[in-house]
């Protein structure tokens, strides 16, 4: 942990700050599930929505692998259902983004939108992950002007046009296939000579007549004044550069965890995923729990995010009971799993049901 935490803004009224037992940061499947469980445990959780309320599923169309929806469900509808369910049990939702934290003492300090101080005995970080961009200056400048990280949102604006997508994983394959519904040609640009996507997705893409693959190729610039007119490509083997005229450029090169606010406080791996204690959502800071994609670079599914969100709420509840912030955890009756104390670490360990 070489990163230094960002200092809190000056001049905030911490004496008058709102103080909650549980604050949940983020509103994807992890955050809403944590909110649902925390609300049902009468912890009166406050949920700070973040800069992308509803999370990554709001930029998808059909979700076909969330258990309980035999006919699939639209991502945004699933998120509205999860929100309703959490709110029904009393979770309080608030607009805004947590911009700063100070986790040096309990209660922990959080700042919403750089202006509003907030104190929390337990913090549940469910900040998720965001689409990565290549990091080119013109890519940023032309965002919304032909550059997009959301094929399902923006594909329809490119009917019968030449467009390109960069990436080689399952997401890139899915989006490339989706884009063939609209575009005249979908140029798939990949830096290696093979995709890492699953075979079935590769086969679908490679057999699609609208797809043209550019192997061993990287994008070095996005061209255009007011709108995208093309890409500058480089062949990684020969070093040759060429221009590809396209009007749309979709980026699907993976995700990065949204953990900047926790830098310097929480232990992370090199990619920025928060390290949690094995089989739990505990972090290196007492009373701070992290769930969902912010700590998971392996599974990254809506259902695993929801699962770890549930774990975070239960971990937080038991921790609060240990600290005497709340009375006995209701875990035994609520979740049919008896809490047990690990005296070495003061961390609760779930016992299997008798």
């Amino acid at each position, binding site marked *: 942990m070489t990163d230094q935490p960002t200092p809190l803004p000056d001049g905030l009224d911490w004496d008058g700050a709102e103080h909650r037992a549980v604050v949940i940061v983020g509103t994807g499947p992890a955050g809403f599930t944590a909110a649902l469980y925390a609300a049902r445990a009468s912890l009166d959780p406050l949920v700070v929505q973040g800069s*992308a309320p509803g999370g990554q599923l709001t930029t998808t169309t059909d979700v076909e692998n969330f258990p309980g929806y035999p006919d699939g469900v639209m991502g945004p509808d699933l998120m509205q259902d999860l929100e309703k369910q959490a709110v029904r049990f009393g979770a309080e939702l608030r607009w805004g983004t947590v911009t700063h934290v100070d986790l040096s003492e309990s209660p922990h300090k959080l700042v919403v939108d750089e202006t509003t101080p907030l104190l929390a005995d337990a913090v549940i970080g469910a900040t998720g992950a965001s689409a990565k961009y290549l990091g080119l200056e013109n890519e940023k400048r032309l965002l919304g002007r*032909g550059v997009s990280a959301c094929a399902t949102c923006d594909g329809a604006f490119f009917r019968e046009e030449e467009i390109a997508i960069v990436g080689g994983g399952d997401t890139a394959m899915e989006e490339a296939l989706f884009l063939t519904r609209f575009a005249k040609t979908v140029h798939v640009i990949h830096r290696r000579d093979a995709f890492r996507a699953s075979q079935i997705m590769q086969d679908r893409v490679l057999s699609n007549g609208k797809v043209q693959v550019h192997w061993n190729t990287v994008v070095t610039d996005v061209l255009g004044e007011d709108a*995208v007119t093309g890409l500058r490509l480089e062949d990684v083997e020969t070093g040759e550069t060429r221009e590809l005229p396209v009007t749309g450029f979709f980026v699907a090169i993976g995700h990065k965890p949204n953990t900047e606010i926790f830098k310097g406080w929480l232990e992370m791996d090199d990619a920025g995923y928060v390290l949690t204690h094995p089989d739990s959502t505990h972090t290196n800071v007492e009373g701070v729990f992290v769930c969902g994609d912010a700590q998971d670079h392996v599974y990254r599914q809506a259902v695993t995010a929801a699962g770890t969100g549930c774990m975070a709420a239960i971990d937080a509840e038991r921790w609060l009971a240990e600290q005497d912030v709340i009375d006995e955890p209701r875990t035994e009756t609520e979740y049919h799993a008896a809490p047990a104390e690990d005296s070495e670490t003061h961390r609760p360990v779930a016992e299997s049901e008798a």
Partner: protein
Amino acid sequence: MSVYVTGTDANFEAEVLNSDQPVLVDFWATWCGPCRTIAPTIEEIASEYDGKAKVVKLDVDNNPQTAMKYGIRSIPSLLFFKDGKPVDQMVGVVPKRVLAEKLDTLAGQAA
């Protein structure tokens, strides 16, 4: 009761370009997830800025001419108009505070 205006290709000139107030135009579509996410914010802004600024929601599927004219390639796209000209553009789910600050600035200039 909604205070936002439903924009169309037909009324865009009258409602947006000829407005004496600054106008926030939300280019959206029914099938766009992030558009639905930001919709409640847009409606709150419309109520809170009633009388100071105008909020217009324009469905890009039904009004392709206006969307094309302003080069909309991503939705939600939020365009700010003042004196008939687009002065700023934001893409995606934007925090309410950012929208409010922009409208405050534009409305302040008008006063």
